[in-house]
């Protein structure tokens, strides 16, 4: 948690990369991806629910664990939409807003999502006592987010460059900082990062690994890969590349439609329809980074990912790209076991 108590009371939490930060910023709030460090709870939720949702609920039920003006819960998956139900019923001091996100990317779904975003923009200032959102404030917020996206694009480019030795762990830390920092502070941090990364070095040849998957909330898996002698050259996760890929059109006649288009058509999370598109994207990430292998991480009980894995694993095997699937429980309590698998996987690539 960062910032003073006053600052935190201007935070609006969100739970998914499909929630446009632009709308939160335009209403005068600070967007913060909610990644609580609380151990999961089973008291209010079925045990076979993913650790992320359980951890959010645990933090929320301990009211001191959530200091924010409100939270936006996206319809990311079955567990998230039920999290919203439980939040509205049992966590009343912090208001929750629901954002319905289609799983399709056709024109009608984009229009439907734009209408949802308009609704969110109308409710957010009222429910959370924020600033009314108009086209000008939304465009200003869009420019701010696009600037961050462009800067992060440079970071990811430096990370995958064969001429740099930017470690995946450092990039991961930067991405994690981006989930909580104010945009101006974050932009300054990225610039400092890029200035340091600009110094050309000749890195030793080590296995180059893409870390892909759903939510990877802790640096330890990246650190384990790099400790084993490899370098994480791309972070294809919802806190990494996929969060920053592609700008929102700034001068579009309808800014909500522009937001809807960007968010629905950005490289998709496993929640979306379109396995083939996801395969093409991850393959491109691996090709662009000259990767020697892919480590795919997913949360235990994440249906969206777990259904994809067998076919994804088979396809990458057929393409000659080694693929390792790791499951975690959000707290990464099984990291020792994962370490052995990571070490064996990297050893085979050396």
């Amino acid at each position, binding site marked *: 948690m960062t910032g003073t108590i006053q600052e935190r009371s201007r935070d609006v939490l969100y739970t998914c990369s499909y929630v446009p930060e632009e709308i939160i910023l335009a209403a005068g709030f600070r967007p913060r991806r909610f990644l609580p460090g609380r151990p999961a709870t089973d008291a*209010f*939720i*079925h045990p*076979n*629910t993913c650790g992320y*949702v359980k951890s959010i609920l645990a933090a929320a039920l301990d009211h001191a664990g959530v200091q924010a003006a409100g939270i936006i819960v996206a*319809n990311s*998956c*079955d*567990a998230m*939409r*039920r*999290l*919203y*139900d*439980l939040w*509205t*019923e*049992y966590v009343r001091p912090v208001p929750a807003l*629901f954002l*319905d996100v*289609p*799983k*399709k990317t056709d024109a*009608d*779904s984009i*229009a*439907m999502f734009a*209408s*949802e975003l308009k609704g969110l923009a109308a409710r957010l200032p009222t429910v959370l006592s924020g600033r009314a959102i108009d086209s000008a404030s939304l465009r200003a917020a869009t420019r701010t987010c696009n600037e961050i996206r462009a800067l992060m694009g440079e970071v990811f480019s430096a990370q995958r460059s064969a001429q740099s030795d930017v470690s995946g762990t450092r990039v991961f830390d930067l991405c994690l900082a981006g989930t909580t920092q104010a945009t101006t502070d974050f932009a300054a941090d990225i610039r400092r990062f890029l200035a340091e990364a600009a110094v050309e070095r000749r890195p030793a040849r080590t296995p180059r690994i893409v870390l892909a998957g759903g939510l990877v909330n802790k640096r330890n898996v990246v650190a384990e890969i790099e400790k084993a002698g490899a370098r994480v050259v791309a972070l294809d996760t919802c806190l990494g590349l996929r969060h920053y890929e592609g700008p929102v059109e700034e001068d579009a006649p309808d800014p909500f439609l522009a937001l809807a288009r960007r968010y629905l058509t950005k490289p998709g999370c496993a*929640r979306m*329809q379109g*396995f*083939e598109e996801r395969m093409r994207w991850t393959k491109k990430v691996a090709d662009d980074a000259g990767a020697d292998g892919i480590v795919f991480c997913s949360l*235990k*009980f994440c*249906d*969206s990912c*777990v*259904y*994809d*894995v*067998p*076919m994804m*694993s*088979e396809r990458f095997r057929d393409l000659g790209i080694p693929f390792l699937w790791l499951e975690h429980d959000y707290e990464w309590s099984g990291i020792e076991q994962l370490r052995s698998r990571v070490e064996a996987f990297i050893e085979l690539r050396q």
Partner: protein
Amino acid sequence: MLTTMLETMEQQTAVASQERGSPMALWLNEWARLLLRAYEPGRRVVYVSAYAFPMEILAAFDVVPFDFELTSGLMGVMGGAVPAMEEAENRGYSPDVCAFHRAALGASYLEEFPEPELLITTSHYCDGKAKTNEILGMLHGRESLLLQVPAAVNKESVRYVEKQLRDITRKIGEAVGQSPDHDRLKAAVRSSNRARQSHQVMLELLKHRPAPWGGSELIAFSINGLLFSGTEVKERLNDAFALAMQDRIESGRLRPEKHRIYWFAWLPVYDSNVFEILKEREVSVPLCETFRIHSDEIDEDDPFEGLALQCLRNPFVGPGTRRTEGLEEIMDDYRLEGAILFATPACKQANTAYTLLRDTLARCGRPFLMLDMDICDPRNYSAGQTRTRLEAFVELLEQRRH
């Protein structure tokens, strides 16, 4: 193997249906015959989630609807799901994947399922169904379609769903080489409206104490019977069940009943002791959430809007509180003393709401049991644990009465 099982089922139920006039036998016979048609040469098969997608649209085409989940359930009933699930697991599908979906994936890998022309599912009820539909589409090399149903019911969402339904209708026509026929759709909607009336009659009859029907048959029919929505078969089945209930009430041939309970979500398809224990303890289940009616009659002259609203008003779309709306009144009307949530481990959308359901029941002053059991995988079943939990629940019902 599946077709052999279906042929046996078709023969056995044909005899029972003719000799005893059993509505259950009639239903199972219709189901077996429908499934067998999917394997006949030249038939156009469309995979569809019958309990979620408006089946009236398919009824307007010369196609055989095939629901991969309901068929997995049937495989579970007939003891054929485990080899299919093992096949899926051997190909990397985690045991955390819903057993219905593992069975469907395995059956497809084993080439037990018929070849589809097109695959259609919906964004409600669960994520896993949409994922499985897409994977099956890839395995069969056919297009898979998703009907996205938003959480809110408003002008935009109705228009959005309506437009998708029109697009899907067009795509079915293209896939099977047949133009959409408005008159046939109109007739299918009219048929559904008639079936809705007999459904209401059944709901009234189920208020009778002791219950004239219920338990596993009611729950299974409430879900699987939807495969026939929009056809005269559904009308005939509803009428047959209503008539049988009426007959039981009039003749007094009713099971003894000490307690009446409500049932949330699904039921175990394999041989288990759940309903046997309830019967032993004289507990009836005269109502389940999947048998309630949530939408109005559909205007046959403007079917797409009505069908869109039917999808949008589904209690498994939107907030979990939709599942508890009107529940207190229902509990009183049907004199229900408690409720069971059947919680199959992979079903996040149903299970994650259990606290809401439990607390709603508590507010009505009724006990609630979350019965953790797999829906289709008997390898995780423990008869002893199930008995302990159910008997403790029945004790609660009894204590509450005294």
